[in-house]
């Protein structure tokens, strides 16, 4: 248990946590506006294949990431049209999006099996990025720093800007927001698109950073963990980072437990911890009297103006 091992473990944890942090940040904004989008897994995979395909075509990973975000946003907009304009059931539509994304990405990705993509260049100087100790801070892919930035930017946006206040109002009391004159549907569309874009980038992390290859369903259920993370964080960005690294730590524990055979608890115990913890937190925050539930009051309910 020396410093090298700790540094390696930290780098792994940060790497594993980043995609769920990205996806959860996007989903948090969506849920804050009152919409429950269960299709995160599908949007991530669509972003993953879009990023991979574009990077393959242009040899430019940055173009790939941008397109991954765009693809995720488009997929989310499909969800948005069904849910906001046509008033369909959010749970069913979200699940359909997840299943659709899994299938579509497999279909498009079939032609890319075996191809390798150019990786991201590090944004810090080589000496820092590959230093045995400092790499824990400077040696990560640009997407890691982007994720960090986005969490803080999102928190600042939601809590310190007028627009963020409007978005939160739309999620807490859509009828009041509507009567004041804000476009509930418009705000929700934007939130959904934003959520999709970040989910797309999160998916691109898998196909562009973790490995430069494509494999079917390579997000391996992380989209569902991202949903759990939003719940665990109590819909607050400040707890999102803590939760993401906690979950990442648990997922890394699962990996190490499997690999080393060091059996305090079976690896499946660690694998199920994120979900169990989310359920426990949900029970705690939902049953409290004061601030009854931190979930946005309109979460999952369609907007039905009476006027």
């Amino acid at each position, binding site marked *: 248990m020396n410093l090298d091992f700790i540094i390696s473990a930290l780098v792994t944890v940060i790497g594993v946590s980043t995609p769920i942090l990205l996806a959860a940040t996007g989903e948090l904004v969506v849920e804050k506006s009152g919409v429950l989008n269960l299709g995160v897994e599908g949007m991530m995979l669509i972003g993953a294949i879009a990023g991979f395909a574009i990077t393959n075509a242009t040899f430019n990973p940055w173009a790939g990431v941008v397109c991954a975000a765009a693809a995720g946003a488009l997929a989310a907009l499909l969800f948005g049209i069904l849910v906001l304009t046509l008033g369909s059931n959010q749970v069913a539509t979200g699940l359909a999006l997840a299943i659709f994304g899994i299938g579509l990405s497999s279909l498009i990705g079939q032609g890319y099996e075996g191809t390798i993509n150019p990786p991201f260049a590090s944004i810090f100087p080589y000496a820092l990025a590959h230093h045995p100790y400092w790499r824990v801070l400077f040696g990560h892919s640009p997407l890691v720093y982007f994720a960090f930035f986005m969490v803080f930017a999102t928190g600042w946006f939601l809590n310190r800007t007028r627009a963020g206040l409007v978005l939160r109002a739309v999620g807490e009391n859509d009828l009041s927001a509507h009567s004041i004159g804000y476009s509930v549907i418009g705000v929700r569309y934007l939130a959904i698109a934003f959520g999709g874009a970040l989910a797309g980038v999160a998916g691109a992390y898998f196909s562009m950073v973790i490995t430069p290859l494509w494999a079917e369903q390579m997000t391996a259920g992380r989209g569902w963990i991202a949903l759990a993370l939003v719940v665990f964080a109590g819909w607050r960005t400040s707890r999102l980072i803590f939760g993401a690294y906690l979950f990442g730590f648990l997922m890394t524990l699962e990996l190490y437990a499997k690999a080393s055979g060091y059996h305090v608890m079976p690896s*499946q115990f660690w694998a199920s911890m994120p979900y169990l913890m989310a359920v426990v937190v949900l029970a705690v925050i939902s049953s409290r009297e004061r601030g009854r539930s931190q979930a946005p009051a309109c979460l999952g309910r369609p907007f039905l103006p009476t006027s």
Partner: protein
Amino acid sequence: MRIRFEKRAEPSRLMQVVTPVAAVLLTMVIGAILFQALGYDGIRAVEEIFFTPILASYKWQDVATKAAPLILIGLGLSVGNRAKVWNIGAEGQYVIGALSGAGVAYVTQASDGHWIIPLMVLAGILGGMAWAAIPALLKTHFSVNEILSSLMLTYVGLQVLNYLITGPWKDPNGRNFPQTAPFTSAQLLPHTLPGTPIPPGLVIAIILALVFWLLMARSVFGFRIRVVGEAPNAARYGGFDAPGTVWLAMLIGGGMAGLAGIIEASSQSGQINLGFPSGYGFTAIIVAFLGRLHPIGVLIAGIVLAISYVGGQVAQSAVHVPNATAGIFQATMLFLLLASDILVRYQLRITSPLASLVPAGRAA
């Protein structure tokens, strides 16, 4: 010219039946176009996915086999959804149900007798119910959203499966493969009823569909479920207590999923391994919706989705599309159904600008 949605006085019965059919047909069209655009033979792909399983009699057994768990779980989910209780954890309940039955099998490995299979089935039902009881409890006592809790528990359930088949229940003769010991002959249900391509699961599914139909349409229980779902205030006034309904809805959903799980394990796979969770619990949600939450609709929708599963496998070998493409079709069917749902509650009104020239008193 203006296009508007105008709310209907009453939901349109015609549209309720037409929209699922239209959704399926439109899915075929969209699917063909999508596949063609991606470089596959679009029309042939759709043909293989939708028509071959219906026309090729050697595929009927596959369709029937896949339809059974979808219908069983879909029936359970449709009851819950009618009461606006959203059980998303059917996949986990399916797995836990199968594991419960497998647990009985593990304990009775050396025994024999006709009582073993009924005990396994009972264990399966109870196991699924127990797994569904957790979100029910969380909802009634902690106001926890059952969508999130049942979804989270699904993944916990999969980990339980993982643990049991790689640990305590691992097959000692299985060369270290993650699987339970194969069920003994006293623990197996037949693949199909002798002489027919019909699996036992489908028979049970059809019987239960008719039972549910009767229950939902003609009993106080069914009435209560529907009222709680459609008019919660009236339900409270009428004395139908919401917590009791939540429990009923979740337990039925869990029990049916567990039943599907143990039947599938006992009649089809004969053991439980990593490939056992096939996503039926999630697809059954689509089945319930496509079937408009009506037992007979669920029966038909289950067969339609089973066709898409089998068709996906057929298309994989014929047109070389990946297996996951069945998911695209299933999701598209659901998308289209959800999109067209609005036509049930709202009417499309196209008004021409000339209409405004008609004097107000004479507007018909």
